[in-house]
């Protein structure tokens, strides 16, 4: 597709970072190009680049302007971005257990009502999904997943909640997410997982990487409570599925 091979826009983000924008919208093809450029930068580092931060539609590249200036960096980035997106190899796949509904997913009933179906059907649609980590951002471990079924798309809440629990699994717009730390959210809360995508004093501290594949399985509240205790002690709860 010619459109996907158009050069990204290079948007200055101050004197020490550049936003490499592939699309203005949530766009799966753009996200694949973001992740491909991220991998290319990791494989062939540009001297002076200090850090790259993938998001849905752009890659934020931090750099040291003492080592490389905006124009030279832009040239090098554009050259890397021109390459066709290579097929991804070695994709990791995770299965994340979720307790849906009730006190753990206070919006499940409302979501079902809004979408004219039953809570069980919402859960069935959510666990049927095959998701990809499009980006991790905002707070540690907050993983934004693409691949939500069209039948689960719905606008975010009018009034964001100021505090939602750690481990919340939610949907908002065309996305679903795994939230690690308690915090504000404008999404609809379907359930919780005991999986910690960010946990200090565990190796690795961050469980998911941008580009990883994720599926969900439904567990009951008792299992969640057991898994939560085990996770608190540093155990892994997410299963990595061999391909």
């Amino acid at each position, binding site marked *: 597709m010619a459109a996907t091979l158009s050069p990204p826009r290079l948007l200055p983000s101050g004197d020490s970072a550049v936003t490499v924008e592939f699309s203005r919208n949530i766009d799966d093809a753009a996200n694949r190009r973001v992740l491909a450029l991220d991998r290319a930068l990791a494989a062939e580092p540009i001297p002076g680049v200090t*850090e790259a931060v993938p998001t849905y*539609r752009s890659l934020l590249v931090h750099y040291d302007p003492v080592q490389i200036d905006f124009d030279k960096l832009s040239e090098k980035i554009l050259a890397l971005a021109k390459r066709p997106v290579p097929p991804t190899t070695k994709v990791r796949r995770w299965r994340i257990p979720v307790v849906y509904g009730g006190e753990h997913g206070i919006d499940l009933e409302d979501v079902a009502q809004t979408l004219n179906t039953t809570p069980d059907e919402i859960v069935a649609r959510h666990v049927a999904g095959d998701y990809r980590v499009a980006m991790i951002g905002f707070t*540690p*471990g907050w993983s934004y997943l693409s691949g939500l079924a069209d039948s689960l798309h719905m606008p975010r809440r009018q009034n*964001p909640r100021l505090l939602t629990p750690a481990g919340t699994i939610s949907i908002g717009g065309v996305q679903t997410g795994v939230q690690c730390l308690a915090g504000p959210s404008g999404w609809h809360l379907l359930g919780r997982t005991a999986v910690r995508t960010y946990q200090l004093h565990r190796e690795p501290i961050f469980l998911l990487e*941008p580009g990883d594949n994720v599926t969900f399985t439904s567990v009951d509240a008792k299992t969640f409570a057991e898994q939560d205790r085990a996770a608190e002690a540093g155990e892994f709860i997410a299963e990595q599925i061999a391909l």
Partner: protein
Amino acid sequence: MTKLVIASIGPASSVQDGGRPGAQRYGLVPSGAMDRLALAAANTLVGNEPFTAAVEVGPFGAKFTARGGAVRVALTGTPRNADIAGRAVAPDTSARLADGETLTLGFARGGSFSYLAIEGGVIGEPMFGSLAVNARAGLGSPYPRPLQAGDELPTKAASGAPERRIELPAAGDAPIRVVWGPQDDEFADETKKLFVDSEWKISATSDRMGYRLEGPILKHLHGHNIVSDGTVNGSLQVPGNGQPIVLMPDRGTSGGYPKIATVISADLGRLAQIPAGRGFRFRAVSMAEAQAEARKFAELLRTLPERLRAIESVDLNVDALHDANVAGHAVSAVDAGTWHAVSLADIAGPD
């Protein structure tokens, strides 16, 4: 063990260093000092590496007592009254606390943050290479939270090196320089002109995550929602109410509001020190100028040791130094009576 014991301290005071870059792709923001030049100058005064962990002291007073031996410290950043057992400590100098002596710091005058560096640094357990406090992420050492009375900062015993002062270029009150973008195309030319032609004030509802600005309403061309993208220190994001927020070192790593401009890195510390309620302006500069300033700033940081002076030569001027650059009763950006944390929700944007 030698330590500095915190006898009293106000909110918005924490251990900070150069921060922990490298994990923003996992949503972990680097944190680190609000005024990097002041941190580096304080560390240079006591012979530390420039971005060694030190105490970032908020706008309120604080008291530190040396225990288990003498402790050598240095104080930089916003001016404030300071004395050790009645002996005045001038801004931008090092000083020694004998075992049991107390360093008393007054309120910030005309700024927000001071830096108290300790010879030998704060001893703690680094995570991702940093001791900087990021309470939300549970990070920071010796305490993963802002400092409180009773906290103890382990350090090394004072070396007995002679005290120094450091000559820093005057910060001045020139406009804060920005480069346009990344989303200045979400704003009309008149709105961009309004942004650089207007006087702005920092709201008292500001903190290490972000400084809210008060001034004219900046209207968006296409609404205030964009698909989240990455943020940097100094991102000037414009939420739905049209009042910009400058993202500071404890920002979220991504945000969903258009960013009209970005403060140049050389001016971030100067912005961090502008007290709430004092008018200031922005000036747009070219990328070439911004990067030239970044290189000059890096050179300034690199050559700080050349700016050290023997302290004897200013003995007679201590009082004058003490009162230099004092801006009356300016309210700090994180003022005592009105201090509120910025809500994460304000930074989040719609995603």
